[in-house]
């Protein structure tokens, strides 16, 4: 199990397209992944509804936990996705 905290790069936060890209990447990774806003409960990162219901905005810090599969590779990819601005 590996985890890392990352700052959200997308201008409009983790909603709409960025949320879709992120949950798609999680679902295709095959690993069990959770995401939590600082101070919040971890939720299933493969669930677009759970992810957008967190109300994660631009500049928020979130913690990603990856369990199973090629953990480090998956974590690196997800962190890169989250820190990129997809709303440009």
């Amino acid at each position, binding site marked *: 199990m590996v985890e890392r905290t990352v700052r959200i790069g997308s201008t409009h936060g983790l909603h*709409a397209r960025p*949320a879709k890209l992120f949950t798609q990447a999680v679902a295709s990774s095959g690993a069990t992944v959770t995401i939590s806003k600082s101070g919040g409960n971890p939720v299933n990162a493969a669930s677009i509804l759970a992810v957008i219901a967190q*109300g994660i905005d631009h500049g928020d810090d979130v913690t990603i936990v990856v369990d199973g599969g090629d953990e480090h590779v998956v974590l690196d990819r997800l962190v890169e996705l989250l820190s990129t601005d997809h709303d440009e």
Partner: protein
Amino acid sequence: MMNITGTGIGQGVAVGPVVRMAERLPEPVDRPSHLDPEREGERARASLSVVAAELASRGAKAGGAAKDVLEAQAMMAEDPSLIDEVTTRLATGKTAERAVFEAFASYRDLLAGMGGYMAERATDLDDISQRVIAHLLKLPAPGVPSPGHPFILVARDLAPADTATLDLDQVLGLVTVDGGPTSHTAILAREKSIVAIVGAADAASLADGDTVIVDAAGDLVVAAPTAEQIADAKARIAERAALEAAPVTPGSLADGTPVPLLANLGSADGAAEALKLGAEGVGLFRTEFLFLDADSAPSVREQQEHYTRLLTAFAGKKVVVRVLDAGADKPLSFLNDAPEENPALGLRGIRALRHAEVILREQLTALAAADAATSAELWVMAPMIATVEETRYFHALATELGIRVTGVMVETPSAALIADRVLAACDFASIGTNDLTQYTMAADRLLGTVANLQSPWHPAVLQLIADVGRAGAAAGKPVGICGEAAADPLLAVVLVGLGATSLSMSPSALADVRASLARYSQDDAKALAQAALAAEGAAEAKQAAHAAASEITATRAPAP
């Protein structure tokens, strides 16, 4: 045959078979299932994945931004958290329909409670929920049908998203049971030139497959038309196609009197389309969009760039820009901070700008700089002027900041009643008929219950327009019209008869208005105006103008 009346949008005609849009499904009853939870679970998962696949394939077909939205919706339909919620409810003995309904509703409420962007996604969840329940019940899915042949769409009303994504090669015409001339459906239909009748209450009785004629100019739907009526409608469709293909010429009356036809635009992006449709300039450029999604006003440089783009597109032509019109139905956080009991009568338009003068100064500075860098003829006007003193204030400030031609919007009865003195203090007037009607009739233009009072044909409104026209003629200053009234081909002639010197409208209305003006001389227009002014109400004024127009056209050869 049977006539169903409603409000026509535009002047088009369409003939075709009816396809009704499925009504919203009722809430599934909460009763114990006679199947076991495993079996109900299979049903639910099967329908969820069918709907997800449907949404994804619609997304792939649509492409662009719609693809992302539809793909996200497809993911929501198969969302693991949602399926957990469904499974939990099935375990208590609920039916798949009810469990799906409740699971979506719980997320819908959660998102709606978060407000803003999240609340909009809540509507998406309702839509997905409806689709899944329809599939479970083997009912047609709600939403715009795609029967595979061109059709006339009949619906209670359309969601803005439905109207925006209508396939115009398939939808020949649109009839809604609800909705008025200022509803979203009407506005979008006008913008996209869809032949439409809104508020046709009796259209609910039409059945799938019925052939109907949608006659927007006549405000009616002809059910079970005769062969002769169909042939007549088809001839009119061909005539209109020829009209659209005709070369665009400057607007003028039959006797050659020029009446410049201008475009209403909300962003520089619409410029090319407006020019293609023959706009001779811009009669109303709304600047709100630059400000609407912002927490603070855009910088002078950002504004200047956009204005330069607009003015460059209309090089050598007139462009009338309205400074920021915030308040009432379009409040801005940095301008309208205090809640008001009656926003339409509150701190809006020039009143709000005076209150936050730095915003007005920056906008005028950006406009003057864009003007200096381009060759269009820039005119700038202020919204919601009610007094001569406000006119003087705006004229002095705009002149100080380098604007060469300044004017006012006439939207309040007060400005119309003292138009001679208002015009003495500026260079031109432009009548905003939507607001002028709202304030003259004391009827909120956003309120459906008083929509019957919201007609620019009312003689009280026409009288005020006549007063402004007369004041403009006496002072030798232009009086334009920039409300939806100018887009009605017959009313456009009446407005010219009342003294309007130019007409500005959605670009899609230009061809019809151009053709209508060419049928009447200046004297004819005055006769139509007098007939309408003398009527006792809006409907009677429209009738009187129609009668006067038929009399004129009957005595001479048909227009080219």
